[in-house]
């Protein structure tokens, strides 16, 4: 590389690096420092990990996100492969329906759940017509799970469809020719081929659920999930140190999940998402 070109090449990356350092790296570092500025100092982390309210919140948030991720993977795995493999009239409409909510912000997702299972929800109307009792789930853990499913399914379906498209059909044909049953093919060919994609999109799904603020903001009037607790600590209690510490905990968990998935899937998430 000759001198001037090297200079130009550096010039291509400098703006992005400067921006990232100024508005991401430094603020994140500041956040970490700020978390120890409270009256407890570094002890804030001890307090965080010994206060029952925070621990319960953490437990429920992780459980919720994990459960939603599993259900999403099953549903999207089946539907994604199904849509990729079969041709029937109206298929493209189904695909469009499944991917439409991809661009919904969390608040809109929350609103969708309210319309579905809220006080005036359609599910409530139907259940009243059948059992005489109005079913209202929106503001419970159940409603929150539905909300998380609502924004997770479209994302994972898209990844599964893309991954299924890449699977070499002759692998399945070879398995069939060797006498494998449909279930054998699924177990021995399809699932192994989809696994890296499922792991990485599952991890993304988990991370998004952990940090999902908008949906919880609309729905979780009574339920403590981590993002809501951070928000209330910051705005209502003005407990900046605790809000920072909890944010760092949240960031560490999601980052950890993604990194773990990346090692497990053996490919860069950047490529998968």
């Amino acid at each position: 590389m000759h001198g001037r070109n090297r200079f130009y090449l550096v010039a291509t990356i400098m703006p992005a690096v400067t921006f990232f350092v100024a508005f991401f790296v430094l603020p994140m570092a500041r956040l970490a420092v700020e978390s120890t500025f409270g009256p407890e100092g570094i002890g804030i982390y001890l307090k965080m990990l010994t206060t029952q309210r925070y621990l319960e919140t953490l437990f429920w948030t992780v459980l919720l996100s994990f459960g939603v991720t599993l259900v999403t993977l099953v549903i999207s795995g089946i539907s994604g492969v199904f849509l990729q493999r079969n041709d029937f009239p109206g298929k493209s409409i189904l695909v469009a329906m499944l991917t439409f909510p991809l661009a919904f912000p969390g608040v809109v997702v929350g609103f969708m759940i309210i319309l579905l299972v809220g006080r005036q929800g359609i599910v409530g109307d139907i259940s009243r017509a059948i059992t005489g009792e109005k079913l209202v789930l929106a503001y419970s853990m159940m409603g929150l799970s539905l909300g998380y499913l609502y924004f997770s399914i479209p994302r994972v379906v898209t990844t599964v469809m893309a991954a299924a498209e890449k699977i070499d059909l002759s692998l399945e044909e070879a398995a069939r020719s060797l006498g494998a049953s449909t279930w054998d093919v699924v177990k021995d060919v399809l699932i192994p081929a989809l696994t890296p994609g499922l792991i990485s999109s599952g991890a993304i799904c988990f991370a998004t659920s952990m940090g999902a603020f908008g949906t919880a903001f609309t729905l979780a009037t009574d339920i403590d999930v981590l993002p809501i607790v951070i928000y209330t600590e910051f705005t209502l209690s003005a407990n900046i140190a605790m809000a920072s510490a909890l944010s760092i905990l949240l960031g560490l968990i999601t980052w950890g999940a993604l990194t773990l998935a990346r090692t497990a899937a053996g490919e860069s998430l950047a490529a998968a998402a």
Partner: protein
Amino acid sequence: MKKRAHLFYAQLGLTLLTCLFLVVPVVQSILAGVTKNYFRGVKSGLTLKWIFKVWELYRDTIFTSIFIGVACLAITLIIGVPAAYFMVKKKSRFTRLMEEFLVIPLAIPGLAIALAILISYGQFTSFRKSWIIILIGHVVFTLPFMIRSVIAIMSAINLKDLEEGAASLGGEFWNRFFHIIIPNSMPGILAGSLMVFTLSIGEFNLTWMLHTPFTKTLPVGLADSYASMRLEIGSAYTIVFFFMIIPLLLAMQWIAKPKKSTAINADELKDMPMKPQQTKPAANPSVNAPKANRKKDSTSIHLRNCGKTFPDGSRALEPIDLDIDPGQTVVILGPSGCGKTTTLRIIAGLENPDEGGKVLFGDDDVTDIPIEKRNVGMVFQSYALFPNMNVAENIAYGLKIRGDSKEKREGRVNEMLSMMQLEEFKNRKIDQLSGGQRQRVALARAIAVRPRVLLLDEPLTALDAKLRDSLRIEIDMLLKSVGITAVYVTHDQGEAMALGDKIVVMDHGRIAMSGSPRDVYFNPENHFVADFIGTLNTIESEVKDRMLTLPSGKIPLNGIKHLESKTEGPVKLFFRPEHTKIVDPGLGHLKGNVVSSFFMGDKTSLVVDVQSAELIKIEAQGIQKFTNGDRIELKLDLNHLFTF
């Protein structure tokens, strides 16, 4: 089959259920937004008043969102596309660190990022109160999506080759960046742009933390309306949001769909009429100045002490010296990995030689001059034709850089097109050409700029055998008539013999020998060269009392060209198949049994066991027939015996 049908319907059922789950509330919200009173249901009548109400109340949020979305898009384009380019181009530890950063918008919840930005910059009140803080948040969040999208496409196209192609034609950094890199990365840039804009429009997590009552965006407004307005208004507002993102989503789907390529498929290409190039010299003398005239433009090339050690420590080239006369065609020949390409790239200016190495064109020291200033023409193994340009534009690229006027360019392009018999393909895109046609466009593009030297790296390797033959003849005639100094890299000895005025045989980063094709073949300087070029047989023998011992008896050394100065002791003798003759019993030097024979039409190849260390290979006329076990006698052409 029955079971398969069950399975199909079960899957369909699940998929339909999922679709209902996703779509029913969307339909509900649309209905609710245009219903007079949702509690009483649609029977209360339809109305647009809620939509008007939303427009009245929340108009500003829509404009703010669009405005921030556009600004965010602009920033991510300006800083993201170059960054993606850097990361594809420069694979280093720093890049890997950067890649790690790209996972951040997924890994760190928006809430945490917003909090961090607030804590760090919140004290600047005017900044805190403006929409710029929201914009910054959006850029942090969306920039990685842009970079990743562009990286994906840049890794898929052969960026390095295209860029080197452009550089060899004189394209400087920014010219390459804007005319080659960006146009060819367009699909990724477009996809990334839509993604960024959509994400920015819908961003809530960061925005909620960063907004003020005066800087509400659409999602913030939505959250407001859901919390404080009647359901119909919230729904009507949601309808507005749907209408904003639907076009974006449609555009994204349209981009993601694999385009029906305009490329003609390979079979069709094969049948395309190829002009009978062999019958007519490709290089039309009336178009080209006679050789003598050109020769004074062409230059000599000298490498002095040029070694190459790559950053990973691997030594591709020992320091070599090489001299190439003006107008000469030099072929660099050698096995894979011996450093041919590296040598060529040093001449081109795509690699720097190690400290102490020098590259001279004539008397000019060009060692520190980058390729775009060296005025070389280069033909790449992958052709490196620019997919964003048609044939004529590809050929004109280098001329454009040199600032030629439009008429001048057109003249030269047409000249090249007719010289390479490409007229009918003038307006074709590169992916609509066959391999051979691409090859000729690549040649035309390299020659169009009247380079000082022409460099070709295995230009024919990607083609099938027949096409390779005809193109080799074409290239030969072209080089002879243009009279340009050319360096041609190949691992095919036939090509080397046919094209080279001089052949440079390389081995393990060293020059094993250089000389005319005849020299290299008939007077190889060492065993490697003799063995690499042509077939070599070995027999063991002995020199004693100035006599050579052969199975048939002793022969005096005097008069045997390569052996006269041989010292006493055991000796290995080497000879080529065509330097032996099958003779009548009693007249030969060697006796042996035929181990196997292959009839090849014009000749018969024999493998013969002469009770030496190795079996030897010889040739007989095709008409002669042998059976395994036949006893034959061979006479050697003593002037073509080698020993090293």
